[in-house]
């Protein structure tokens, strides 16, 4: 098999996942929102873009392809791309408006559940999506007319790189602005941010929507690169692969998200060839799902390993001016003396809000050494459904 096409495919995929990771990084890495349903925005973007750009039903191209879908508007691909972002953003706005106020655990479950609802709708409303069959003749812009099929993957890679670079620049610009600082303040200490007059629900919703829009763009890029869209592509493991990319790259760092996606794709795509190993090919003959399953096992182990041994990632978030509060209410971060971000924000700062404000909010975790002292701040944290 040719190495160059493989690399081109890998890079294109890495860029598209990089865009997904960029969105999740804005939501989780910067703002601290646990989004376990990222794949829903990806799916909506893909279907929006596909349905808007497909040749209309009954047109010559439709008949020629022997297609069976109901809706195709035949709009240009750039319009589909933009509206895919809009759709992703709007869905995120809708989901976020209902759940962004929930505290972390609940938000994770709510987003996970809503992604499953979206998938369920996409599967069952087959008049729109053709359900499990999918739609296979999604237009690939300029193919055969301007760009010959032989070099098309290279051209698509170049275009994807430009699009991702622009979106990366815009995202970095956003997170380095005062708005980005406000988002980080929500992540680091929401109570403090609110007490300083920041409208934290609006900030969280904004980050959630922009992250959803980025995933929507990624969906559009993806569907046009494959020329195919079907529901089976949008399973929960996609979400967690993006999580793996963000955590591996270094959460809170946009460049890290891209690098993490590249690493993720290098790992997942190269493990496709596991079945060719002489040792495993015998097993593959007996159980055809052996090697695909083994790949998912590896992804799972990688997720576990990264969280456990490599929590700061390849490119950790740039340490910002540490703000230290004196007094016994705060323990020092477990990992970094000088860093205010990185892996700590999952633990320390959300700790107080994690279980939805039962009466015993102060007693956080069984293994928390000196928990009684360390959780004074947590005891004051708002309950899960806190409305300002």
């Amino acid at each position, binding site marked *: 098999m040719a190495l160059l096409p493989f690399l081109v495919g890998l890079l294109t995929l890495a860029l598209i996942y990089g865009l997904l990771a960029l969105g999740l990084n804005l939501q989780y890495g910067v703002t601290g929102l646990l989004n376990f349903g990222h794949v829903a925005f990806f799916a909506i973007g893909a279907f929006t873009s596909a349905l808007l750009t497909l040749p209309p039903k009954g047109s010559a191209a439709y008949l020629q392809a022997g297609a069976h879908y109901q809706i195709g508007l035949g709009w240009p691909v750039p319009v589909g791309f933009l509206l895919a972002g809009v759709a992703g953003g709007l869905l995120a706005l809708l989901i976020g408006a209902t759940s962004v106020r929930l505290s972390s*655990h609940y938000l994770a479950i709510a987003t996970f559940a809503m992604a499953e609802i979206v998938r*369920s709708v996409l599967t069952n409303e087959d008049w729109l999506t053709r359900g499990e069959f999918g739609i296979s003749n999604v237009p690939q812009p300029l193919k055969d007319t301007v760009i010959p099929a032989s070099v098309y993957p290279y051209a698509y890679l170049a275009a994807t790189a430009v699009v991702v670079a622009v979106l990366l620049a815009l995202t970095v610009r956003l997170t380095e602005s005062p708005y980005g600082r406000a988002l980080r303040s929500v992540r680091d200490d929401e109570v403090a941010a609110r007490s300083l007059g920041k409208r934290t629900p609006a900030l969280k919703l904004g980050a959630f929507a922009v992250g959803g829009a980025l995933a929507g763009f990624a969906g559009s890029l993806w569907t046009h690169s494959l020329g195919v869209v079907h529901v089976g592509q949008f399973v929960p493991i996609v979400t*967690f692969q993006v999580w793996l990319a963000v955590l591996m790259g270094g959460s809170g760092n946009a460049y890290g998200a891209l690098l993490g996606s590249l690493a993720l794709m290098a790992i997942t795509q190269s493990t496709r060839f596991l079945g060719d190993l002489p040792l495993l090919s015998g097993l593959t003959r007996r159980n055809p799902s052996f090697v695909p399953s083994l790949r998912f*096992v590896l992804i799972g182990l990688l*997720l576990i390993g990264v*969280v456990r041994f490599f929590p700061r990632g390849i490119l950790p978030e740039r340490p910002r001016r540490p703000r230290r509060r004196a007094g016994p209410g705060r323990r020092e971060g477990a990992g970094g003396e000088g860093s205010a971000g990185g892996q700590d924000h999952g633990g320390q700062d*959300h700790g107080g809000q994690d279980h939805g404000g039962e009466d015993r909010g102060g007693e956080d975790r*069984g293994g928390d050494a000196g928990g009684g002292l360390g959780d004074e701040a947590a005891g004051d944290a708002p309950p899960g459904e806190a409305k300002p």
Partner: protein
Amino acid sequence: MTAFLQTLIFGLATGAVISLSAVGLSLSYGVTRFINFSYGEFLTLGAYFTVLGVALGLSLPVAIVLAMAAVGIAGVALARVFFDPLMDRGFLPLLVTSVGLAFVLQNVVRMFAGSNPIRFPLPLMRPWHVGALFVPKVPVLVVVVALLAMIGVHLLLTLTRIGKMMRATSDNPALARASGISTARVLAATWFLSSAIGGLGGVLLAMTQIAVQPVMGWSFLLVVFAAVLLGGIGNPYGAMLGSLVVGLGIELGTTYLSPDYGHAFAFLILVLVLLLRPRGILRGAF
């Protein structure tokens, strides 16, 4: 009317399966304080171990008991390897690790047992005839077993020493430690109990679904989450109540609204609960 009663019976059985699994999940949440996304895989393992036991020539009840014990031990071992080292690092690492572990377990099952559904080795049972109503035996059996198991858990929590220690630790870990309870031991006991219950839940799930498949636990997980949150997280008694609502909701929704959506009704209930009553119907400690 007959159809409604049939639906009700199946709804109760679904509710009972959810209920038992939700109790197990709540128990572990009460002590570990994180939501275990790999809990569904304990259900899958329980069902597969039972199928394996029967294939090896054991009788079904013996296979079920051994499978529960095996899942319990597996739960303790997995917790020791994967979760215990992260216990003081906050809940995000635990949450992500549990997702990773779910993928590992689910796909290890798939690697060895294949993706295709395997029939659960349940003997054929003729339904009872009550008037014009056919009462299938399997749902009734499922309800009875789940009820007995939950009564057992209740007695364990209220009467035995280890049960009281679990409740104390869940209520206030610092105070429990201060009064001389070995939290590590309680943690291990809780993991065993919660995983073993999950294993039994998986067996009952396999009975209601007739077959076992590697994704059965993972796809059932959200339904269990819905019940747990509806009942108030960390509260096993609330979980029982929440499960009844979710189980009936799924069956009634599937029968009367749209057969295609099935579990989506549970997710809808889940989302509504999160929006309207994030603390659940019953709040507080168990």
